[in-house]
């Protein structure tokens, strides 16, 4: 928990005016009810409600588009904070199941969307070359370097 505060200067977050330009700029907030970067700063950094924020699955809806950070009048690294919180949540076992499955798929096949025999046939009909199988060993080594393999219990 202390790590987030080490990585991100808490002083920076004290500057937050709660002006809500971040949430107002957030494309995810437009479609995901209850996803609110402003509230995450308020609760996680200023009120210290870290456990609760980490347990909130909506965190993972952030697309890291950086719109919030770009428009923040105080240049607070909001996207950076969200990424970090997601990392912590993952380490704490709060990685949502669909995401977990997705990463596992990447580890096994190198793809985030499964290539089926059907898709191979379509490619052939369109005169496209068959897909190359990605180097999964490399992907796995990245996963192990970043510690994701432990989280995913690969």
């Amino acid at each position, binding site marked *: 928990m202390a790590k987030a505060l080490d990585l991100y200067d808490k002083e920076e977050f004290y500057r937050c005016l*709660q002006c*809500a330009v971040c*949430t*107002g700029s957030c494309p995810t*907030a437009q479609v995901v009810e209850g996803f609110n970067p402003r509230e995450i700063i308020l609760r996680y950094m200023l009120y210290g409600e870290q456990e609760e924020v980490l347990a909130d699955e909506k965190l993972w809806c952030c697309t890291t588009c950086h719109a919030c950070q770009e428009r923040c009048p*105080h*240049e607070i690294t909001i996207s950076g904070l969200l990424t970090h919180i997601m990392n912590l949540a993952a380490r704490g076992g709060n990685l949502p199941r669909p995401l977990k499955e997705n990463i596992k798929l990447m580890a096994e096949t190198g793809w985030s969307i499964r290539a089926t025999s059907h898709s191979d046939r379509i490619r052939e009909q369109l005169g496209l070359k068959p897909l190359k199988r990605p180097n999964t060993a490399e992907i796995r080594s990245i996963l192990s370097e970043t510690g994701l393999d432990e989280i995913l219990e690969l």
Partner: protein
Amino acid sequence: MHEPTFRSCIQAAGLNQYLLEMANIREHCSWVHLHDKKEATEKAKDLVRMSVARARLLEPQEEVDIPVIQKALVIGGGVAGIQAALDLADSGYEVILVEKEPSIGGRMAQIDKTFPTMDCSICILAPKMAEAGRHPLIRLMSLTEVTNVSGYVGSFNVKVRHRARYVTSDCSACGECSKVCPQHAPNEFDIGLATRNAIYLPFAQAVPATYLIDMDLCLNKDGVRVCEKCVEACERKCIVFNDRETEESFEVGTIVVATGVDVFDAREIPQYQYGRAPNVITSLEFERMINAGGPTGGHLIRPSDHQVPKTVAFLQCIGSRSSKTNPYCSTVCCMNTIKDSLLIKEHWPDTKITVFYIDIRAFGKGFEDLFQRSKKTGVQFIHGLPGEIIPLKNGNLRVVGESTLLSKLYDIEVELAILSVGLKPSTGSDLVRRFLTLSRTSGGFFMVAHPKLRPVDTSTRGVFLAGCAEGPKDIKDSVTQASAAAARANIIMRRGKVTVEAITARVDAENCTGCAACTKVCPYQAIFMDENKKAVVVEAACSGCGTCGAECQFGAITMRHFTDDQILTQIDAFTEYESDKKILAFNCNWCSYAGADFAGVSRMQYPTEVRIIRTMCSGRISTRFVERAFARGVAMVLISGCHIGDCHYINANTQTEKRFHRLRKIMEQGGLDPERLELVWVSAAEGQRFQEKVTAMQKKLITISQDEIKMGMKFFGEREKKWEQRRQKRAQDGDAGDSSFERKRKIRVEAD
């Protein structure tokens, strides 16, 4: 603290007040060493030794009175400048009021109504403008800029440049000329919402009520006359095409700076579409539109289709409270928007108004009432600024954001959006700052001498601040400050003289080599080189910080009452015994000495090893003083002063910092432990900081070996000897001009 008391006491007894020396046993010894009587007593003895030694070298000093010219300059003709000029003129002084625009009036003339009283801005301002224009003691200079100020309190030498007006003061402002003028351009006064001709009056109530010609727009250029329509129309024959820019200089005793503000350029925040979507306007543009004398005759219409908008959004804090633009709160925008919302409701009660804000700051008298009134008329206040404004094809605007109080997103369509733009220092203020040697606060506004107790004085004597030049403020505060500035200037002029404390620098011309190092470090530009390449101090401009004295390598500058000898003898006095167990601290009079006093009054306990020597400014601390201390075997030296930016002598402490690093480098080169020398900034309220620093230094002190101390004595002892030999040699040579320094300087000058 008690120095003035004792000074007046000995003065009453018939002695010169400069013969007083105080040993501060109470705050710097007994109160801070309550539990170590033996060591505290030893320290007290040292403090007495130091004071006695210095007292022996004190000399009576005569304070000098400088005559004050009973004439004032006011820079800037906004409401603050007008008020200051009127107050001074009504007190009987001649005033020169300089305004760079063609008319006085400033920002207030552009505003429709004032808050919280909702009275007509120009209606209350115009009589004041007229009064300033016709006052027999005020000389109004419009279209004029101050180009230089030299001199000092009592006799400032001011240079101004009058731009050509091309119309004489015979003009009766009948307006026949502009009716026939074929040229048009956007009118600056209406922020480009209306047009003016090449010959024009900026606005109806302008003072002076004299037309002017914009030569960039006029068809007659460089003496070529292709159009004479205005000349033909002018009955009084007051158009002169051969008018030229002129310069003028005069002397004044005091100066009031009222350079005002500009507004933030909303184009810097692209997501709000200002400059791209026509129906996004600024609050200043709104003021012109809602004004009955403005370009729309008081009708609020949106620019795209000239229709009266039925839905209006206000966006607050545009360009304010942001580390990207202006970090400060512009203070007037909240109330201005509340006032604007009421103005709209007054004329078009069915208009739906939404105000998007971060905080509503309704702090002044009557402000909260106005806020409540606005809410009662149905104006909606939503906490949470929009993320963006999306322009729609029909000219409407989608405003998208989050209402934080409901934790809900909003997506509102409005017909007009008004950006409540913040204030920033006026563009010309930087030039004024430079020639008046004023300091700035972080937002770029001028700094006052003390934020609480001297709120209109500046660090330059005889120069005062009024209005928004000092920081964003509303009309009432600007006028209040202007009257205060006038009153402060009045004090100096009424007395007819200023007394200079006898601590200023004196130059010994014989020792001066003409190196000009002193002139470069003086924060007041109070020292200059005369035609014989000798330094000369302007006593009235000198504040006695001593930075020049510390910089002079030839002993040519004497800081009266804080002479080299007086300070060196204090060092010698406490180093007679066990100097290796002592810490020498230099504290500046205003911050760090007061900080040490504060530690004393608060009974903050710290180690007894420290001995304090007071100087007026840390800039006085010559490297020689520190070297002498180490040569005498002092274990550690602490240099302390005001925080950077808080220096009471503008920025003299930046020299302190430079010398500190230079000394540490010398120590490193000499194989010494550079950490025996420390630097700390201590404000008058930071007794604890001083306590912590001394405590930390004492911990370091006990680790310093005898070898280290002896090495320091030897190293700096030899340096001192060499310095003394050089000095004697120069004295024998007689001709200072032959010194190597002088030769180097000559070579440099020739190379240039």
